[in-house]
């Protein structure tokens, strides 16, 4: 299994500090999660057949013509490579590591291409996988550029897979509205923006034919009844979404400023900041000793990623930890 953020139990074991005494900044998940409504009894007792109201709510929220709910985009990331004959696949680097890992496991020939040089790789592959904005660097590609790539790939029967897991707080719209065209596959995550990572729910927007193949592969009852109910409430709550979008953009900017005031030039999006820290392992250890669990990238994106602190105390603790780091 690949290493991910959010592994607070590892931290607790390694540093002998109880789970409750950690500030977990190791993910890019919204710390102010959607207030989950109580689940009805039927959500638990009945088989969770697919609910057209949930799909409609997702299509409206993501502005996509057709979508399929999946048990986290992880389910789609694992299934998509199995829907194609062996192909030439390009995955942006650095990137969310699960993409490359799963394309690699299903007989495809895989190439890693630096995010900034993807344009040169479009015509020499069948499948291009890119996170927009990128995790963890926050780099971003304009929608019209991606659409052009999607068209060029589609002409050869290729795919453009765009993972918009962190797209909800972006000023620019996602590619959802165009996902009805063949060859464009857009992944959206409910876990990040809504702070509902435990729900295990994501959506895939793509051509209906591909969606039905994907649905067949994933099988029935993929999304639990309670998850369907919570997601329906969250996706239709425009008031919460509007206020949260602004709040997260403010907090993301606050995090960037806080780092900048400690001499760290970071990039990212509203939900996280990342920078290529020279001595990332020492930084990671220093933070852990202060009870702050950050994400250390040891390989492609060598550096540190920080999520948003959940409250003022945590902001203060982070600021103090950054101050002592500077004076080491």
């Amino acid at each position, binding site marked *: 299994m690949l290493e991910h953020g959010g592994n607070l139990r590892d931290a607790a074991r390694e540093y002998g500090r109880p789970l409750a005494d950690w500030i977990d900044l190791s993910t890019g998940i919204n710390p102010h999660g959607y207030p989950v409504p109580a689940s009805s009894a039927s959500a638990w007792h009945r088989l969770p057949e697919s609910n057209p109201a949930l799909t409609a709510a997702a299509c409206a929220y993501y502005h996509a013509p057709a979508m399929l709910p999946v048990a986290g985009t992880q389910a789609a990331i694992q299934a998509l490579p199995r829907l194609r004959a062996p192909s030439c696949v390009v995955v942006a680097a650095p990137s969310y590591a699960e993409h490359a890992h799963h394309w690699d496991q299903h007989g495809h020939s895989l190439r890693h291409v630096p995010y900034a040089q993807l344009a040169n790789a479009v015509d020499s592959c069948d499948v291009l996988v890119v996170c927009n904005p990128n995790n963890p660097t926050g780099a971003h590609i304009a929608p019209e550029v991606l659409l052009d790539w999607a068209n060029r790939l589609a002409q050869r029967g290729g795919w453009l897979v765009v993972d918009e897991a962190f797209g909800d707080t972006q*000023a620019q719209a996602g590619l959802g509205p165009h996902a009805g065209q063949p060859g464009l596959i857009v992944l959206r995550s409910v876990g990040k923006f809504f702070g509902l990572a435990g729900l295990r729910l994501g959506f895939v927007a793509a051509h209906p034919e591909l969606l039905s193949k994907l649905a067949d592969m994933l099988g029935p009852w993929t999304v639990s009844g309670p998850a369907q109910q919570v997601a329906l409430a969250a996706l239709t709550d*425009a*008031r919460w*979404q*509007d*206020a*949260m*979008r*602004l*709040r997260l*953009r*403010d*907090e993301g*900017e*606050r995090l960037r*400023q806080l780092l900048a*005031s400690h001499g760290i030039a970071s990039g990212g999006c509203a939900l996280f900041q990342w920078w290529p820290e020279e001595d990332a392992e020492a930084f990671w250890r220093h933070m852990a000793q202060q009870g702050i669990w950050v994400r250390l990238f040891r390989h492609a994106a060598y550096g540190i990623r920080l999520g948003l602190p959940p409250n*003022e105390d945590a*902001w203060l603790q982070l600021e103090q930890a950054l101050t002592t780091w500077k004076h080491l």
Partner: protein
Amino acid sequence: MLSGLSLPMLAGLMTAGVLLDLLLGETRRWHPLVGFGRLASALERLLNRDSRRFLPGALAWSLAVLPISYAAYWLCGLAGAALHVFLLYLCLGLRSLRDHNQPIADALAMDDLDNARLLTARIVSRDTANADAASLAKASTESLLENGNDAVFGTLFWFAVAGGPGAVLFRLANTLDAMWGYRNERYDWFGCCAARIDDLLNYLPARLTALSYVVMGKTMADKKRAWQCWRSQAPSWNSPNAGPVMASGAGALGLALGGDAIYDGELERRPPLGAGRPAEARDIDRAWRLVAETAVLWLIWVALLAGLYYLRGKYLA
């Protein structure tokens, strides 16, 4: 000074005007700026018609502002000090800043979001229908800092320069900027004159205000932050005078203001102002206090100048 008032006299009249404003607040029944707004709207409908609209805009500005300012000047010649004070009282809005913003803080403190949204919508132009408590507190605090400049410091500055008529001219020009100074099809050319004149009239007062907010920072760290925010953030703000005032004020209060907001359903990207934690309901009162205490600081400065002037007179005599 242009008004012919001596410095000691000016200091006394300014203090009287501020006290009158704090005591009485806005006139309840017939606010002169409302009447002026109607006049300005009528002029705009009459003159904002064809495509070459810069000169009509300048003409409308002159017709709206100059006769009233001249009348104020003429009347001051007849009625003297009392009228200077009365005009300053009409132009000042220190008390009304609190009257409009304190209810927002109260509604937020009682978790009455719906009411807070309605009250905030009356004083800012951004969308508040879906706003949460933090963004309402932010909107109100930003409005207090920015309007502290227009309704208090710009007015006091021009009163110091030209007495009651100066305050009147500034306030009318400022109102026209608020009505016509928009970057859209209808106002881009017509409102250009009003916007540039307001930029000009506010240039010095805004910088004096920003400097005062630095001075009024409670601790050295607050002062330093206010100064740094002013220098680094103001240039990227879209208004040349609101930028220094709001960045310095937000820095002095240790708040993170600015940032993106929704106007007419569209996300507008705004640079950050200030630094620190997000605004809360209690910061609305802190912001008003900053404006009020800065007004007192200005009165003290003028009184000190007047004292020096008086002593110099004694020395020369």
